[in-house]
């Protein structure tokens, strides 16, 4: 069909334009990060002559991005490990074990999924403050676990439902306890789902602003994203240094995206196809 082919090429032009519009802001930022302040003021668009790392080094050490980076890394790692452990335990039980109250519990988890953080942020901050967890690492980790646990339980449950019940039964007949089945069968079989849920949880936590802002008021406890925002005040007239800070915060995500795009997309779409 010549008409259809023409239509396809006609669509390709604006789509390529949109792709450029999607990428250009990032390229622009990376380019600015490589410039000196003088170069930037004189001409903000021309490509930076060479790769200069001064700005990056300045943001990394001078503005404390290193500290924020470590904070984020520790918090996200702990939160994701806990999410995957608790999510797979509950998911296995809800999907493949029969016990009284299981459907009620599943509904409760689903209800948790539909409560946005904004709706509970005031009372949650108060609960955290009352239990002395505000401005502590465990406090923020727990807040992240609570925020993304319903989603994690939901996806792990739907994943474990795709694993035949006969496998569980066979393992039980072979003399495994329930915990043995979890450790030896369900955990290994859950790896693909754990990977894509884990990456998504990690992205959510890494990218979060609001929860970190509320749970970690002191400057030395800032996560990387809060740190990036703080750079704004610090480098009001040094745009290249500011762009460098932004770049530092974006690069880990870019790396994850380049290597694990498929898993991220799987996690995002799981809710739409399995729900």
């Amino acid at each position, binding site marked *: 069909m010549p008409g259809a082919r023409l239509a396809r090429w006609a669509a390709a032009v604006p789509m390529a334009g949109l792709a450029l519009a999607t990428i250009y802001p990032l390229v622009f930022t990376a380019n600015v990060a490589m410039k000196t302040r003088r170069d930037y003021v004189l001409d903000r668009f021309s490509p930076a002559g060479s790769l200069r790392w001064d700005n990056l080094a300045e943001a990394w050490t001078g503005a404390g991005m290193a500290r924020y980076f470590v904070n984020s890394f520790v918090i996200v790692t702990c939160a994701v490990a806990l999410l995957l452990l608790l999510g797979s335990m509950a998911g296995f039980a809800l999907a493949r074990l029969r016990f009284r109250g299981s459907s009620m519990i599943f509904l*409760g*988890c689903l209800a948790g999924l539909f409560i946005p953080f904004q*709706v509970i942020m*005031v009372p949650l901050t108060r609960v955290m403050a009352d239990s002395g967890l505000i401005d502590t690492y465990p406090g923020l980790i727990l807040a992240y676990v609570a925020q993304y646990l*319903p989603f994690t339980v939901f996806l792990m449950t739907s994943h474990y439902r795709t694993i035949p019940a006969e496998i569980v039964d066979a393992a039980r007949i072979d003399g495994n306890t329930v915990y043995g089945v979890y450790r030896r069968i369900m955990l290994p079989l859950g790896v693909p789902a754990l990977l894509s849920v884990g990456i998504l949880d990690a992205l959510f936590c890494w990218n979060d602003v609001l929860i970190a802002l509320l749970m970690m008021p002191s400057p030395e406890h800032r996560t990387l994203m809060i740190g990036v925002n703080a750079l704004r005040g610090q480098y009001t007239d040094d745009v290249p240094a500011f762009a460098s800070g932004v770049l530092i915060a974006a690069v880990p995500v870019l790396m994850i995206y380049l290597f694990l795009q498929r898993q991220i997309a799987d996690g995002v779409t799981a809710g*739409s196809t399995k729900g």
Partner: protein
Amino acid sequence: MRIAGPSSSARKARAERLAPYVLVAPAVLIIVALRLWPLALGVNFSFTGDGELNGTPVGLGNYLELAGDPLFHISLRNVGLLVLLLPLAVAIPGLLATFIYLRVPGHRVYRSVYFFPAVLSPVIVGAIFNLMLGYDGPLNSLLGSIGAGPVDWLGDPGIAMFTVVGVHVWATFGMALVVFLAGFSTLDSSLLDAARVDGASLRQSIWHVIIPSLTRTIQFVFVTTMIGMLTSMFGLLFVMTSGGPEGATYLPEYYIWHQQGQMNRPALASAASTVLFVVMLVVGLLQITLLRRAGRQD
């Protein structure tokens, strides 16, 4: 005579019976204590006072104050704007996904490129666009080169909200695109082939084959995009406008944060939270009903 304790096999059986509860307990405890319980606490809290009246019941006082607060009015008006823009925010990724599904030249690249901003933090997106949209930034120089502008993207109260929504759509349309593509992969391609053989135009194919087959996906995208607009723009507002200029870019979530954190009015913030929750429930249910009805007509 010694009373025999439970035999080891009986003890084992009991442990096995309890095992499911042990497995779900930590997750249930956390969800109940840190999500469901705070929801109830917050609603309760919204009927009490702030400051000197801390803890004393004030009835509907906070809600009345909200009803009279111009900033809260702007927040709700902006929610209305988001609802109006929602069909656009769904149609754009839907159309793009259709073309990618039809294998437009370069479709593999587009998928990866479009999805990328969706994994970036709103803080990073906001920071980048602060650079791009500055009064003397790249976009205005581009406009200047064709003789238009400059536009005060973030400083003009009539424009700023559209700018922020535009950036939000730029950053998240890839998410909806990927969901649409997953929907397309379940589409029965013989239907499309049949339509093509019968001489259907592209528009007819979209209208009569693709949309009816993807009702569930479209429903899902509508609801998740709406939730995204109402609950994940805080980062952008925080970095790009701080609610300004003149409060023009307030959304309920920003209002809640502002009242709680800056104005020290947690009870008033709780009332706003409750309103937001009700708004989301109503909008969500309304959408599902409308889309169900539309789906039935096809």
